[in-house]
């Protein structure tokens, strides 16, 4: 069986994330996003490419077992109402609680912009959004959700935005992880991504910053705060164009905290209706935020912004310093543009820009070079004298974070999506060469097939299990709490036990006609078969040549045995040489001085040398033949050894 991944969006690009994965007969759609850069059919994934979706009355319901949405960004959820309400998918949809709460705000906002501002024909209505969201099943982090008998899914904290999750899916013995967008470093209001060590056939990861390594976020935040403080100290106004959810809350927490510390009284405004409503949701979703916010909410909910007030249009030209959050981000129109027109001409004012702006927006124009004049249309232009500050912190992981995650999970295969083609190719190279993991970066509408894992299940006998789990000195206890990756937190450690010694090899797999496969201990097998074990022993009565051996020495063999024991202990420093007085034992190897005139194990009996010979009777079993022959070769070369060590041995004997 194979795992097939059909990339319907975000293949070598950012936008309309959508990957359809078939595992052992189940098909899951991960994300159902739209592309902000297109207005035609290209804005949605091409759903008709989904296998088995054509020519059936039930359409997508039979083709897809469930949809999983990772977070509320439109490039991940934007096409969902279209797919459910227009294309008619009626199967289960899973997302986290915050995503279910906030995605409709994003969708409704987008719909309004499309219809009201651009005058487009709407792709889906408000009712469609409501109907669509009603079908969504909300999940909590780390909860194992049984979609059906065979399909299991689980969400893991991804950082990025509130409620963002990586999703694990398991069908039979095969399992994959789809990361969605994630952040490996905590920010003001969210924690860093967290994952368990999972056995995975495949990881599908975002790769927005496939080649970037970022430095400390705190330095970037300080720069932002300093820019804002400098502006208001000079009685200037600060315009922060932003979208309603995510960045607005993060910056606001940052500013509130700074206002408290610096005892600032300058007002912070939210443009009408916008984020105040969103804050209501954030307040109930405290458990999805950063550790610090979680610890303090019962005395002060961090989303109860003390300094924040509502902004009225009439206040635009009121003199005096202030900070204003206004939608939309990127200054593509609406209220942020209106305010920008008034504030941009003054050198006292400041406008902040997000890290990424779509081409065609004013934000994009301000980013590229330092324009002093911006043409709105043929007749209107804005003089730009204000300061521009570009925010350089991003809620996406950098290349190091992606490498850390992949290394930590060590899946059999990696697929990169949600990035730019050349950078992805470079990251793919690193994953293959540095981590030795097969990696792919498919383009849209390509399918990647990888083999899936399958297990044979066998009944294990108690004797086998007991013999394996009986602790001995080689018994290894390994836990997934890992040391090699300090930047990565795996909170939920699944302790494991690994038996790597020969006791496993004492197990025998037995296949009997019309019975379940069975693993038994070798001793049990004989019992089962009613047979007796046959032992193959080795024996060799080894002559040791010793010059000038007199008869007293000959008789007092024990003395020599002590000497051999000392020499062997040097040769086998692991300490498995045991001297029992009458004989020496190394594992199954047994050696004693042979005083018999004729020994059945004496092969090269040479009566002439008998006076110079001491016979060592050795026996051993097959498993220890390596040790045995090593000892025998030592004995045979004893004359040499003895001379070499003569000074040493006389001292000791």
């Amino acid at each position: 069986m194979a795992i097939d991944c059909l990339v319907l969006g975000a293949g070598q690009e950012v936008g309309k994330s959508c990957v359809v994965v078939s595992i052992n007969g189940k098909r899951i759609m991960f994300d159902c996003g739209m592309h902000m850069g297109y207005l035609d059919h290209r804005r949605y994934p091409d759903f008709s490419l989904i296998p088995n979706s054509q020519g059936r009355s039930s359409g997508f319901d039979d083709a897809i077992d469930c949809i999983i949405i990772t977070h509320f960004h439109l490039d991940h959820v934007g096409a969902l109402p279209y797919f459910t309400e227009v294309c008619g998918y009626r199967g289960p949809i899973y997302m986290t609680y915050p995503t279910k709460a906030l995605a409709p705000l994003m969708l409704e906002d987008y719909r309004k912009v499309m219809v009201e501002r651009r005058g487009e024909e709407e792709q889906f209505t408000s009712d469609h959004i409501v109907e669509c969201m009603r079908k969504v099943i909300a999940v909590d982090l780390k909860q194992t959700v049984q979609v059906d008998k065979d399909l299991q899914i689980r969400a893991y904290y991804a950082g990025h935005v509130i409620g963002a999750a990586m999703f694990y899916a398991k069908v039979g013995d095969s399992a994959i992880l789809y990361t969605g967008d994630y952040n490996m470093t905590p920010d003001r209001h969210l924690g860093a991504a967290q994952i368990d060590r999972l056995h995975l056939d495949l990881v599908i990861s975002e790769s927005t910053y496939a080649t970037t390594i970022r430095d400390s976020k705190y330095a970037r935040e300080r720069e932002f705060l300093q820019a804002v403080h400098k502006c208001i100290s000079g009685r200037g106004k600060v315009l922060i164009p932003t979208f309603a959810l995510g960045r607005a809350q993060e910056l606001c927490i940052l500013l509130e905290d700074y206002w408290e510390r610096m005892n600032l009284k300058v007002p912070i405004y939210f443009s009408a209706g916008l984020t105040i409503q969103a804050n209501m949701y954030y307040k109930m979703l405290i458990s999805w935020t950063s550790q610090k916010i979680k610890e303090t909410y019962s005395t002060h909910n961090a989303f109860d912004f003390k300094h924040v007030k509502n902004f009225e249009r009439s206040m635009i030209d009121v003199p005096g310093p202030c900070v204003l959050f206004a939608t939309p981000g990127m200054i593509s129109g609406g209220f942020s543009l209106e305010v920008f027109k008034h504030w941009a001409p003054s050198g006292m004012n400041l406008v902040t820009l997000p890290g990424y702006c779509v081409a065609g927006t004013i934000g994009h124009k301000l980013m590229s070079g330092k324009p002093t004049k911006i043409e709105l249309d043929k007749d209107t232009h804005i003089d730009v004298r204000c300061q521009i500050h570009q925010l350089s912190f991003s809620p996406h992981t950098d290349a190091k974070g992606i490498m850390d995650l992949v290394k930590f999970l060590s899946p059999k295969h990696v697929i990169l999506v949600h990035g730019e083609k050349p950078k992805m190719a470079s990251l793919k190279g690193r994953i293959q060469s540095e981590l030795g993991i097969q990696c792919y970066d498919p383009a849209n509408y390509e399918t990647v097939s990888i083999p899936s894992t399958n297990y044979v299940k066998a009944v294990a006998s108690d004797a086998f299990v007991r013999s394996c789990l009986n602790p001995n000195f080689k018994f290894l206890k390994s836990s997934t709490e890992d040391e090699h990756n300090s930047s990565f937190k795996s909170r939920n450690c699944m302790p494991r036990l690994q038996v790597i010694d020969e006791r496993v090899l004492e197990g025998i797999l037995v296949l009997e006609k019309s019975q379940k496969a069975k693993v038994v201990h070798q001793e049990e097998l004989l019992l089962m078969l009613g047979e007796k074990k046959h032992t193959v022993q080795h024996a060799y009565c080894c002559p040791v040549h010793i010059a000038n051996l007199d008869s007293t020495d000959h008789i007092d063999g024990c003395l020599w045995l002590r000497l051999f024991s000392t020499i062997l202990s040097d040769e086998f420093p692991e300490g498995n040489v045991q001297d029992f007085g009458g004989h020496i034992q190394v594992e199954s190897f047994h050696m004693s001085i042979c005083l018999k005139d004729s020994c059945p194990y004496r092969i090269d009996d040479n009566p002439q040398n008998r006076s110079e010979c001491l016979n060592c009777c050795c026996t051993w079993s097959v498993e220890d033949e390596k040790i045995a022959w090593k000892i025998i070769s030592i004995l045979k070369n004893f004359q040499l050894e003895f001379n070499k060590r003569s000074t040493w041995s006389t001292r000791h004997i």
Partner: protein
Amino acid sequence: MKFTCLSKGGGFNFPSCHILHICGFRILFDAPLDLSALTIFSPVPVGPDGLSGEEALCCRDLVHAEPCYKTVKNLHLWDASFIDVVLISSPMGMLGLPFLTRMKGFSAKIYVTEATARLGELMMKDLVSVHMEFRQFYGDEESAFPQRMKWEELDQLPSRLKEIALGKDGEELGAWMTLYSAADLKDCVQKVRTLKYGEETCYNGTLVIKAVSSGLEIGACNWAINSPKGDIAFISNSIFLSGHSMDFDYHALEGNDLILYSDFSFVHTMDDLDSEFNSASGTDSLRSLASADGILEERGKLAFVCSCAVDAVKTGGSVLIPIDRLGVVLQLLEEISASLDSSNLKVPIYFISSVSEELLAFTNVIPEWLCRERQEKLFSGKALFGHVELMKEKKLHVFPAVYSTESLMNWQEPCIVFCPDWSLRLGPVVHLLRRWCGDQNSLLVLENGIDTELALLPFKPIAMKVLQCSFLSGINLRKVQPLLEILQPKVVLFPEDLKQVSSGESMPFSVLHYSENETLLISSLKSSEVELPMELATQFHFKKLKQEHISVARLKGELLVGNGKYQLISGSKQADQKCRPVLCWGSPDIETLLAALSQRGIKGTVGGGTMDSKFENVSVVHVHEPNRACIEIRVTTSVVTAADEDLASQISDAICSVLAST
């Protein structure tokens, strides 16, 4: 597998307590406190004027001492250091936990849902705080507290109190403990490992443990435990449909081998159970398993409490509601304020507890733990519970204590007060009950399951109206069988008390009955399983045996124990040495052996068969090419003698090849 019921408990506030022995581990279910036993203590010092009646108890009979707390007696018979895992099913099941965690040698892993951990912590914090208040008010010096009854003089207690103190068998003295400190509590909370509903966690690679919502209270749960020896579901008091917490998720308990049924709520409703039960089983009740009748009945009770409260307020009386059940409190807050509004009454509602602010703040940030209707509030951007609005509108006031500055500044009567503690011995309730007990217009709302007469003893004579109501605290007996039919276990462990319900022949599973402090042995429910990766299994050398229908192969690789499973994985170190069969059986045939030897270029002759000293048949093969060697063959052993390694190894190869081996 062994199961011991340590305590059947006593209703919602005192859950049952058990120990399960599985796969070499001991699992303790819950560590509760019997707070109802607090009623033997006097809440306030009483003067000598109280008249002691001959028959009836009077206030002076109560124990006048700093209260002690009654834990589960049988738990003390176990060495705490032998417990490996503690599973806490509800905030109430956590109240006795610090007694365990502060014990020397205790090192068990404790699993609790996130919400239970937080609520349990707040309840214990409040308990420690009201206990401290008790000591501050009455002092801990002997002089300040007229100790008429010393703890040592328990024998002189009236029999009714003595039974509570010492148990029916008079053996429960050891169960009484002085309360843990705030530091013990903090230490305890740090030791718990919190879980989400449905989150799988693995203990020691062997037990996979999962908490599943039980519907009883916010964060309350049942447990699913997967082990190599069988899959187990532990069912504590559960409620199918709740007005606040997430519903009983019984589907998650389907298909387990064993069910430990530990819902003892029926003990209190057994009398109500009539012949109705027998006729109601089958498909009808199956359909109604999660039907709304339970929740409607609950709403009805809440509405009745509200109407009584409104009546009391209308006559100028105040209402005192010392109920600790969070779900009931949260819903009553909403209902009562709505009733007051609709009757146009402007009466303040006070919520007085040292943790009231934290408690109410917490309940508004946990949508993931609530019932569907509450979750819908999140999705439409509204507060999860009504108290958020009520506090904003200044209809509900939250105070840490009766005599806090805020409460003294704002106090107005008549009023409606929610406060702990339901045993009427500690905290704000004592002060307010003293204040209002003589007012016939005022109303006291009590929970069922408390000995009202005893509880109210220190406040007599009482003119105040008393309303006692029972709230749903478990599975209706009529639904037990339909539930089990869905869950399809192989074996069910039922309380002995449930025998009349659970011994019908129609059960498609075997039933065992347990009673307190008896150990039940459960035979193994399934055999262990090893998973072999397909890639690895195909590399094995299979051999067909002379027993034609059997083929065998020696295992290779490493054994991984994790997630309650045994898994073979390919070994990390490549076995470079020649793969030799280790196990041989049968006896070699001499002729076949000679042939096998000559195939390897070894020539030998058979020496005469002899008997050795033990009268065993010995055959000897003398090898002379390529070198001298000798093979001694007995029935169960062969001895190879050769002077060089290569020849010796060739010969033993040859012997193995003519034997059956793997």
